[in-house]
């Protein structure tokens, strides 16, 4: 589904990604772990098409289509979804209006009729329940005054509404208490499907107790330096990043958070 070859990317002239290679097939769940500053978030942003990051070399294809030639909104319509590490607050745009506009943009792209306000309200309320977000949050400004956990649940709510082909979760576990982590993980697990891939970017392995990945990759210094199965994450938890020859100021376990 997603194929990344020799990806190099810079921000403000500084190279962050230095040759990433990654293949993700439909139905798979991949986790990318790594210390702070390793380039994890850069990779997420580059996949979503943030223009602040410049791709200098390499290629990314989604089901054979060159992703780098598509604008952010076109990538989203082709099925890329990024759950933001720091979801943006947008006062003055209601969450409901935002979500409906997004869903209808997708539907229009697929040649489907737009959903009217009543139909959409029904759907949005159901999914709000699924991520344990009170429907009153639909009426508020986008993420406006939401707690950290509420923002993350709102991200998962969007993923469930938009039904992407590839969901990228950027540090979705950060700032969550154990109950919220459970709700968010249940939401992500509900996304798991044969025709969908999930890419989780995380510093800590605790999320992987709830969302069990098929593959784990370690990103350091802008490159994937080790790949393995689930057990690699457990090993990182036990031994930190140090044994891989990486300097990291924080251990990769969950208790520190």
């Amino acid at each position, binding site marked *: 589904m997603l194929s990344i070859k020799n990806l190099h990317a810079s921000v403000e002239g500084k190279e962050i990604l230095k040759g990433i290679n990654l293949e993700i097939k439909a139905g798979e769940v991949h986790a990318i772990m790594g210390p702070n500053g390793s380039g994890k978030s850069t990779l997420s942003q580059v996949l979503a098409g943030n223009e602040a990051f410049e791709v200098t070399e390499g290629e990314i294809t989604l089901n054979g289509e060159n992703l780098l030639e598509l*604008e952010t909104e076109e990538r989203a319509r082709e099925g890329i979804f990024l759950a933001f590490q720091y979801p943006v607050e947008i006062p003055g745009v209601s969450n409901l209006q935002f979500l409906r506009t997004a869903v209808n943009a997708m539907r229009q792209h697929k040649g489907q009729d737009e959903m009217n306000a009543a139909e959409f309200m029904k759907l949005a309320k159901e999914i709000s329940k699924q991520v344990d977000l009170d429907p009153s949050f639909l009426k508020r400004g986008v993420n406006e005054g939401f707690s950290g956990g509420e923002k993350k649940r709102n991200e998962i709510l969007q993923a469930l509404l938009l039904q992407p082909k590839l969901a990228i979760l950027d540090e979705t576990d950060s700032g969550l208490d154990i109950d919220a982590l459970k709700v968010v993980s249940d939401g992500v697990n509900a996304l798991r499907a044969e025709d969908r891939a999930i890419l989780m970017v995380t510093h800590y392995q605790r999320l992987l107790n709830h969302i069990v990945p098929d593959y784990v990759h370690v990103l350091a210094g802008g490159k994937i330096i080790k790949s393995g199965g689930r057990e690699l994450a457990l090993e990182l938890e036990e031994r930190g990043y140090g044994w891989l020859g990486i300097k990291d100021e924080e251990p990769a376990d969950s208790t520190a958070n």
Partner: protein
Amino acid sequence: MKPAPTLSTAFLHPAGQSLPEPLLALRKQRGTALVDMPLPTRKTENWKYSSKYLKLTDDMAISLPAEGKTGSSLAVPGYKVAFLNGVMMPEACEYPDLDGISIQSFSDLSDEDASDLADRLDSTLDNKAVQMARLNSARFEDGLLIRLKPDAVLDQPLFIVHEVTAEASGSAFPRIFVDAGRHSQITLVEEYISSGSAPVMVNTVTEFNVAEGANITSIRLNMEGENVQHIGSTGVVQQRSSRFESHTVGFGGPLRRHDLQVRLEGEGAECKLNGVVVTQGKQHYDNHTTIEHVAAHCNSEETYRNIAADQSHAVFNGRIHIHQDAQKSNADMNNKNLLLSNGAEIDTKPELEIYADDVKCAHGATIGQLDETSLFYLVSRGIGRREANVLLTMAFINELVEQIPVEAVRETVQGRLNHFFEQTFQEA
């Protein structure tokens, strides 16, 4: 040194003589006082950013004829008064006989009422600060007098549609005086529209005399064409425990100027002033507001938003003057500005003068652009760039549009905004 420009004498000759004698006399007196009136220049402090847009040529001095059809009469849910080129058109007005409320054209006033009115016209305005309002006093051909007896309540909004027909150059001088008795209530909508394309000047004065406990809502919609220079002045004087709420929505033009002056003269009076301005192309818009806290225990709350696209220019100047005896005043002024292009210009200036020591006074002004992070967030959900821009721009003024208490006005405003968005944001 070049002598300061003065108002051309061509502007000092009113045409219509159909007003009652006391008003004709007043007009003549005001006209005499205008001889050699200096015109604002960039050295005139309160016209610093706007004088270059003021272009009064002699062919604009003549009053536009008060005849013809009121063409683009909008469907109005409520009561309606129609003015054409500053003169009331009785056949286009729709309002019933109302208990305790009189709505009359100046021309229809008895000499006694006209004499009373002549004593009070201009009384709500500081003429030094609104130089151009004096021209209206020397030139008005008609006007609307609304009188509410104590406790009278108008049950529906009253729409006052001021249309100018610019078939040829000229000017119009719409005038409104509202005398709101104790505990009376009214919602007024002033709508300024135009047809035709000749360069014209519209110079308006609206005055509100708000007695104790009265509750006034004033909505002002400026939607005239690209050929209309509009100079408007609104004066408000409020007595004890009265409330004045204003909603100004303006779309730019070659010159748009509105001065709003509120005097809180009675204890416990409060005013709430909201304003939205949208400019594009090479348009201009300038809002100058003054709130005089004269009495103690008064509240004022002011929120203005400007959006400037292309090479347009928006100005906001908000003055709050808290007099020595106005203890326990509570004043809050906020002006936020959104630049949609590098070529646009916004000037904002808060002016606070505080002479009382026990007051709360807050003010804030910002100028910014659409937030790239928010834009990326929206498009990352598949929302088109154009639509994302519209959502974010609308978010900037949504709160103020939603507060306009008349649905038909909100719809009109939204329609005009949609038109603005279509011209301003193209699909990538």
